[in-house]
């Protein structure tokens, strides 16, 4: 089992191999966190690349090695937002007109798609909790909000997801019964 704190201490002293191990240990969490904000894998790659360099440069500022994971994910997410801000300045016309999915009939929406359709705050909290696997404590540290606020955001996000899921199930049932429930 990897001893993260020891790796952080060694990486702070300039041990490249330890830094590489740290990044490899959390690359999955980095990708999943980035994907909660950015749509394309290329954008995720760009943000994670920048974040990795920033992490190395600022590792000496991390006072508590046990907080490395949440600190790392925060840097990744900040890079994602920076990328979005840069991209908003240059937006291609077809990206604006491109629909999320074609409404030419019934398409079973995967839970991933439902996530994308949610407000960003709710999407982030569900991704970080269920997919990245952060604990409640880690969520409060990462988002810098009290536990109670984490609770209420989680509650709203789950309610929203439940609603989307139930709508999906109703629509599926309607199609199976040969009826369309949405009128154009």
């Amino acid at each position, binding site marked *: 089992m990897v001893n993260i704190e020891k790796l952080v201490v060694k990486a702070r002293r300039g041990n490249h191999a330890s830094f590489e191990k740290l990044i490899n240990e959390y690359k999955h969490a980095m990708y999943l966190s980035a994907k909660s904000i950015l749509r394309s894998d*290329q954008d995720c790659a760009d943000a994670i690349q920048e974040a990795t360099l920033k992490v190395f440069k600022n590792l000496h500022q991390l006072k508590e090695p046990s907080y490395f994971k949440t600190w790392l994910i925060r840097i990744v997410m900040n890079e994602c937002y920076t990328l979005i801000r840069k991209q908003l300045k240059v937006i291609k016309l077809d990206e604006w007109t491109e629909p999320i999915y074609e409404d030419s009939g019934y398409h079973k929406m995967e839970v991933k798609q439902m996530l994308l359709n949610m407000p960003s705050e709710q999407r982030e909290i569900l991704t970080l909790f269920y997919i990245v696997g952060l*604990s409640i404590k880690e969520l409060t540290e990462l988002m810098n909000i009290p536990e109670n606020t984490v609770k209420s955001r989680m509650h709203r996000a789950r309610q929203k997801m439940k609603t989307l899921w139930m709508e999906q199930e109703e629509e599926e049932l309607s199609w199976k019964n040969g009826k369309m429930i949405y009128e154009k």
Partner: protein
Amino acid sequence: MEKWENDLRKINKEPVPKVVELGIQKALKKIPRKRNNRGIYAFVSAALLFVTLISGALYSPVFASTLKSMPIIGSIFAQVDTADAGLKTSVLDGIAVTHGKEVMIEGKQVMIGESMYDGSRLAISFIVEAKSREEATSLLSRLRYKINDIPFNGWGGISIDVNEKELVEGRFAGVYMVGPNKKLSDEFKLSVKTDNGFSTIPVELKGDYLVKDIRKQKQEDGIYISYEEFVKYPTSTVLTFTEEQTLDSYLELENQAIRYAVLDGEGKEVPLIFGTGQGGEYINQKIQMRYTYILPVELTEVTIQPYIENISNGEKVRDLKELKIVIDLVKE
């Protein structure tokens, strides 16, 4: 767990795309292999020479008289008013070790008096040069140390107790305690950062301990508590238990939280030596917290009464009666 929750969890299993892997590799290649150590623990080789030069002046007459003024039967641990009974007698009981090492920290004379490690916690006694209790406490709160080269931040909760009254003029006695959240080895080096580099003292586990199983599970309203065991150490008793809560139950407690009243055999609140709760992970469809309470050694019976507290005003909402447990610390 609802199906959408299961589907979300499955996303975690999807591999990292190649394009992201390449991005990471690009970043790692850009990072220089060698860099100057700008860490806060950079060593200065000349520091060793300085220690030799000034050590003659380090042992001051004030310290000498401080040591002479201490009662013969006591120790620095025994001098600290708020230290628990187990710690106060630890030197006499042969559990604590005397070091009497003098160092300079932030320009102040500090004596590392004794260390006590019996497996439940690590305690170090100090005599600190200061104008007030607050100044002594403040200096100890900025103490930097390593345990076998791992900086102190990684080891657990800390508590600092300094006497109100001076031990002798300009000197205050205090205890610095660490409740480790990970296992320490039976022997280790404790290195304290001083003005002249790190000063190291050896620490060794002393005394025997006895593990007593409790193995009782209680349940109420989507909350599950497993009272696991208690361990009797020479200077304290450590109780561990796990709380699990369904996500629905957790979210229903809006602006509320589960708290634990720890009471003695007469129903009075027990002054915990340490109390820590860790976790919050979502495991097996429940949010899990693990609690470790370090109890005074003289306690013979303890009652744990979980209750719901209103976070905004700190008022008790209700007791969780089904989750209560009374533990005989002598018989069980």
